[in-house]
């Protein structure tokens, strides 16, 4: 994909399709490694499915027999001297970590991750999202559950709330930079 945030969006969508109620997204730039992980409490994958999940001709989709989300992410990571790690347990959840050589010439830019988060929160306001961005020694954390506590009965997908979340994420990460 042109931007890594699109891969992250794809992986979050996998989590949501696995009925996750909590998704933790972590983006990390440290030394010469760019790493992101998506961890959920969804239905998880059996050992058998986990073995073939990197194969593009494996998918849970019933409309067609090809799933390229994980294969394309793995190819992108490997191309940048990185790798894709996946661990999963049925009934517990899945954690997926992609790493890239940060300075690799083919590493796609992160892209608009704030917009990615707004998109998933807007579509799934009931899900708990935890977003962490680490840069060197610094860390920026955003939790929908903190916002939910403050807002009480106001849904997270209220347009004003989404706008605020987008701005907050953008500013928070810019300050880190």
């Amino acid at each position, binding site marked *: *994909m*042109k931007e890594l945030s*699109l891969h992250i969006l794809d992986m979050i969508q996998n989590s949501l399709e696995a009925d996750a109620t909590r998704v933790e997204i972590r983006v990390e730039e440290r030394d010469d490694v760019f790493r992101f992980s998506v961890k959920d409490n969804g239905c998880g994958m059996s050992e058998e499915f986990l073995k073939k999940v990197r*194969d*593009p*001709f494996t998918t849970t989709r019933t409309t*067609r027999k*090809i799933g*390229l989300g994980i*294969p*394309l992410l793995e*190819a992108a990571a490997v191309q940048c001297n990185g790798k894709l790690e996946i661990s999963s347990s049925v009934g517990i959840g899945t954690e997926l970590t992609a790493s890239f050589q940060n300075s690799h010439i083919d590493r796609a830019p992160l892209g608009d991750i704030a917009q990615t988060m707004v998109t998933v929160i807007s579509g799934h306001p009931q899900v708990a999202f935890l977003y962490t961005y680490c840069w060197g020694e610094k860390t920026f954390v955003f939790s929908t559950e903190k916002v939910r506590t403050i807002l009480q009965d106001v849904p997270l997908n209220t347009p004003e709330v989404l706008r605020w979340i987008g701005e907050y994420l953008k500013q928070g990460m810019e300050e880190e930079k």
Partner: protein
Amino acid sequence: MKVKQLAQTLNFELLTREDYQDCDVTGGYCGDLLSWVMGNASAGNVWITMMSNVNIVAVASLTEVACILLSEDTLPQQEVIDKANEQGIVIFRSSKTSYQLAAEVFQAIGK
């Protein structure tokens, strides 16, 4: 123009099985960013690329391109060729660059 006729005219090397379904070529598409090709290549296109991992077979299958044309002597691993045969995807190869191949295909099919 049919794929077979185009391949013979332009001297492409066939990497997959001989007895492929010969379909009409509707045009061409160049691209190495598979996620982008997935959304933009059209059915019946000659897809010119230098990517050679197994994901190209999946993308070709999804987009229903007429064939994959590998440029600059790209040689995929045997497992990729096996997968293509299994899925009925046709793969050709040439020593020319994607730029040259695109120009030649364009001239040969007139679109």
